[in-house]
């Protein structure tokens, strides 16, 4: 087991999802149990499914100075950065520590592939990309982090983590190590993924897309609803207990089982959980809330329900929030980290929106209804294709050390 780590202060955080811009919009949807999913109207030939679409991006071009980076993913990144004054928090950190001492670690599954798909539908007579959609910096996996690095004038380490649906959870781990070694004094972490043909038709080909709004852990669940989102957090070393929430631990692992199906006994997921709890120096009995991966695919929810049942006490309140936002893929890690931080800050334990009858595999931890409580410690699960797992542990900033 890894040794405990020093907690990191989460100095600022934000998320922009189909529920709206900024964490207030997400909190409102979580409090009222409102699903932001809508019938799929994305692209030239929409499949009959439901999506979590961020409204109005089409009418929000990037500022002129950033126009060379135009694509839907960067528009959403830019909108997301503006949420909750996050840019100002980053600029203040840059001022405090120096631009070279602020790392940028962003997760994305598909980055700006949507712009590449657009180009393939508009190839010129020579079979090449059209002149207005030909920036090499856009058509590559690193475009998101490169764009944000450029837009925020940062000068520290800058890297893209792309491990499918665990991408923007793993960014916390990469950033923690940079901070632990003293290579930087702050890290901007997060992730952005936008709707695109690749994921809508790709998950459809795997027969994982639901014709109705997704119903995580429901006995009659019928697959996922794909969403888009941007989320960010600013991490710094904790100078002792204060009002800011903290990253307490993380765990990363591989299933070594299958490219697109979880390990049947959840061995990889459990290993990530063990490592996350060990780094946080806590026991699963102290976990108040779990934001589940809970995609509403038959297999994920079955395996994850069994993991919750065998590892957490009955009092732990566990839900998936994908019925609100959809599965935002490479952005799911950061969106659900933000959902955990909101639970810690407000004590609101969300309902499992859209789900009506829990699968028989669910233990007492997995809930349909929301309730007001107290959340000192929250866990977020993110599991991706390739059997790539990441579990994060967050605390309220006043959690005592190892038990």
């Amino acid at each position, binding site marked *: 087991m890894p040794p405990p780590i020093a907690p990191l202060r989460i100095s600022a955080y934000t998320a922009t999802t189909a529920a709206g811009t900024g964490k207030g919009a997400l909190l409102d949807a979580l409090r009222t149990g409102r699903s932001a999913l809508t019938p799929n109207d994305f692209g030239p030939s929409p499949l009959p499914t439901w999506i979590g679409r961020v409204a109005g991006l089409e009418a929000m071009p990037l500022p002129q100075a950033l126009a060379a980076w135009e694509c839907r993913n960067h528009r959403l990144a830019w909108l997301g950065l503006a949420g909750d004054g996050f840019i100002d928090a980053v600029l203040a950190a840059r001022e405090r520590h120096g631009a070279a001492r602020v790392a940028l670690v962003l997760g994305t599954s598909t980055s700006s592939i949507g712009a590449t798909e657009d*180009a393939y539908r508009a190839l010129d007579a020579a079979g*090449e990309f059209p002149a207005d959609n030909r920036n090499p910096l856009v058509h590559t996996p690193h475009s998101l982090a490169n764009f944000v690095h450029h837009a925020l004038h940062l000068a520290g380490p800058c890297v*893209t983590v792309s491990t499918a649906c665990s991408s923007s959870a793993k960014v916390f781990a*990469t950033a923690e190590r940079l901070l632990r070694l003293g290579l930087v004094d702050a890290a901007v972490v997060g992730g952005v993924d936008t709707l695109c043909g*690749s994921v809508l038709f790709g998950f*459809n080909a795997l027969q994982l897309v639901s014709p109705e709004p997704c119903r995580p852990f429901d006995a009659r669940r019928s697959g996922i609803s794909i969403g888009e989102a941007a989320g960010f957090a600013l991490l710094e070393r904790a100078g002792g207990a204060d009002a800011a929430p903290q990253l307490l631990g993380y765990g990363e692992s591989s299933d070594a089982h299958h490219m697109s199906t979880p390990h049947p006994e959840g061995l990889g997921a459990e290993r990530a959980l063990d490592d996350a709890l060990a780094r946080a120096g806590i026991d699963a009995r102290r976990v108040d809330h779990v934001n589940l991966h809970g995609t509403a695919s038959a297999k994920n929810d079955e395996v994850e329900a069994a993991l919750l049942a065998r590892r957490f006490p009955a009092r732990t309140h566990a839900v998936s929030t994908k019925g609100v936002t959809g599965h935002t893929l490479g952005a799911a890690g950061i969106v659900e980290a933000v959902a955990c931080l909101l639970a810690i800050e407000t004590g609101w334990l969300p309902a499992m929106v859209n789900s009506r009858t829990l699968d028989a595999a669910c233990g007492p931890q997995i809930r349909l209804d929301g309730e007001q409580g107290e959340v000192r410690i929250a866990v977020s699960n993110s599991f*991706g294709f390739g059997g790539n797992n990441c579990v994060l542990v967050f605390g309220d900033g006043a959690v005592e050390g190892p038990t």
Partner: protein
Amino acid sequence: MSPPAGTFFIDGVAFWAPTLPGWPLARSVFRGEAEPLAVAAKRPAPELLAAAERRRAPDTVALALEVAAAAVREAGRSADTLPSIFTSSHGDLGVNDYMCSTLATQPTAISPTKFHNSVHNAAAGYWTMATHCREASTALSAFDASFAAGLLEAAVQCRADARAVLLVAFDIESVGALRSVAASQGLLACALVLAPNPSEHTIAAFAWSLAPGPAEAPACRSPAARTLTGNAMADALPLLERIAVDDTASAGVDPFALRLSRNLAMVLNPVSFAAATAEAGR
């Protein structure tokens, strides 16, 4: 004298390019002691994969698994004990070209296998499956600094957790309409096993730090390496040339900087490891 804190020791190196298929030949060529193959080799066929999988595997997966297995073998380690860092500038351009072409013409005909192979961590996924490795695995990209970013992550993990880690770096030839935007020629891959302590397998050691300020990529020294610079993973070549040339030297080699971005470098200081290795071998 013990090496500076945070030094990483390179215990295994692997390399693959069509005219330099394997580290022994690449090393000799980088040292000016041999010539590259006159006839380019076909893509590697990693033994880790079953015959049918070997044929179906995307180029990135074949390439990555070939060098990953070779580096772990050279390092004398068991693959299932190593956390892994996979890095690639563009990922599988062939699969991406297929995805985008199919989406433009007949989107509902997308192959489910091609879709799950389109994730940037496909090679990492196949590697962990083939080696039954449940350790952490990541997949990175940093455009033209993808090797440097991968090396930084590997060095950070090695130092932060005091564990040996596997770094695998690869890019392939651009294809189809993607050639308009993604410039990458041929196949190029390398893998390194980084360890926090010296062993009898150690062939190089570097102390390292970050250096803010304008950063330029170092140039390749050998004509053979210069012919490979069209590949998007070319930022790996200068370090591999250094390792090839300096692996028998004990110390006194100039520091060396890899470009992480236009305003940040990772400085590598070669460290004498002969004494430490002899110690470890006793």
